[in-house]
């Protein structure tokens, strides 16, 4: 497939935004359970939510560029019953609304305890709003990944590993950013967030390697003989019917050399999984905010390469019909 940068930016930005929100909420839940110190609702939760909202909005803005008619994009919520793209279009704004609500309630200090669970856990409105937003964040990871995983002809994508990878990599980038954000707001949660960021990055490495292994070993189910229905084991296309290009020769192929694709794969493995972990562990000891932000930027650039590779890796069966120029 041809990797579209607007979709690469969309998925990486909203993945990081979702992960950052989930990190903030995890911090809130842990502090309510007295496992961590509670944080200031304005400087930590409100500005944190604003940062997450900014990433989500930037991702949404980027996504308009992959449409032919962005002015009709509102129509894309119509088929939520059958289309995962439609479901994502529904869930993303609702999630953004709840993140905004979470941020606003924290900003205006509307954090009075509503009731207490089992005499120990105080529940306030931000906890409830955050819970709904958490469920929506996971629904959004699922919807975004299922856009690709639901296409059963695209064997490289059609696997639960696609959903697992989207979720884990989004969480990893979000928690890495949360570590940097915590260092900037001087919240003593840096160690907590670095720990979880490393865990999610390592889990993401395992699952991404699993999908690389699966895709490398996979047997192609469609060959030219199925494609044209002629039963012979040697079929070669002599002409694709035209000598120029067409949508089918551009949209479904990345146009780069195999060496470049391998380079992107090696790049993302290093930049997403290895360099950020090394930086974060050394930065957590030193407590340096700048190093943690560098870790996030490196991981984010690596994720762009990972998403590029994800798209470039998929071989659409229609490519069998477009082999020979002539």
């Amino acid at each position: 497939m041809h990797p579209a940068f607007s979709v690469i930016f969309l998925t990486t930005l909203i993945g990081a935004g979702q992960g950052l929100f989930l990190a903030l909420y995890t911090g809130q839940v842990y502090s309510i359970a007295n496992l961590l110190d509670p944080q200031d609702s304005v400087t930590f939760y409100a500005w944190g939510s604003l940062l997450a909202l900014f990433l989500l909005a930037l991702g949404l803005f980027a996504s308009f560029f992959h449409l032919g008619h962005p002015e009709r994009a509102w129509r894309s919520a119509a088929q939520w019953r059958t289309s995962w793209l439609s479901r994502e279009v529904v869930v993303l704004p609702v999630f953004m609304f709840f993140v905004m609500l979470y941020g606003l309630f924290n900003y205006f200090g509307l954090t009075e305890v509503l009731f207490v669970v089992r005499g120990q856990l105080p529940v306030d409105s931000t906890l409830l709003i955050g819970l709904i937003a958490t469920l929506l964040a996971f629904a959004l990871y699922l919807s975004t990944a299922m856009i690709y995983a639901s296409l059963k002809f695209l064997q490289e994508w059609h696997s639960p590993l696609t959903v697992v990878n989207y979720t884990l990599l989004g969480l990893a980038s979000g928690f890495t950013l949360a570590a940097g954000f915590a260092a900037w707001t001087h919240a003593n949660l840096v160690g907590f967030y670095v720990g979880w960021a490393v865990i999610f990055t390592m889990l993401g490495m395992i699952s991404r390697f699993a999908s690389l292994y699966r895709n490398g070993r996979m047997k192609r189910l469609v060959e030219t003989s199925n494609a044209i229905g002629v039963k012979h084991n040697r079929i070669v296309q002599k002409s694709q019917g035209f000598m120029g290009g067409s949508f089918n020769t551009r949209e479904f192929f990345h146009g780069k050399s195999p060496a470049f694709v391998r380079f992107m794969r090696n790049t993302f493995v290093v930049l997403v999984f290895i360099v950020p972990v090394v930086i974060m562990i050394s930065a957590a000891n030193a407590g340096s905010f700048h190093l943690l932000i560098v870790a996030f930027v490196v991981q984010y650039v690596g994720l762009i390469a990972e998403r590029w590779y994800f798209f470039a890796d998929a071989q659409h069966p229609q490519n069998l019909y477009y082999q020979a120029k002539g």
Partner: protein
Amino acid sequence: MTQLALVIDLNVCVGCHACVTSCKQWNTSGWAGPLVDQRPYDQDPTGTFFNRVQTFEVGEYPNTETVHFPKSCLHCEEPPCVPVCPTGASYKREDNGVVLVDYDKCIGCKYCSWACPYGMRELDENQKVMKKCTLCIDRITDESLPERERKPSCVLSCPTDARLFGDVHDPESEVSIAIREQGGYQLMPEWGTKPANHYLPRRKAKIQIHEDELDRADNPLKKEAPLPAAEGETLDDVAW
């Protein structure tokens, strides 16, 4: 339910591209607007076509066959391009089973072209919507055309009658009979898309004649010699 479709006879197609040209002409001058054609006389031309004819070589030289393969939307009975469309622009008509695109709703996200395993959907670079073979819906439903012309333009233009048009759900239609009698098959049936267009395979009509069928074992004359009647009258020639 009526399911209109094409049957394409690969045994007869000579790869002349008449169907490609007539399809392009009809759809460019029809109600849906022109199909894009960029740099047609320059280097690196590109454009949107609903129907393309490809050529495949089967076998190893010198025992090869050249198969010309016209490719257009198969109007699947379980079209994978319909449920994935987020706006509902991609739909299948209930009355005749033709899969169509509503150009006023399409946002050009290209998800339907990813979902089609056959690569039949193309983005029109000018109009920025997804387009595909409409089975000449504007011709086949046009009551003002004579019955003979209420067919897709590719079917009318094929000089070898390699393209047949009809209802594949009607067992007595021309297409159903062709599929049944000539071994018509679908493309990639294992994906469960149930394409309505069928292809007729390469075939030769042959009968087997064995040596011993020419030579009768129980020939009473023991040789294929002139009959005794040629040598004069026999008892059978007596009139009474």
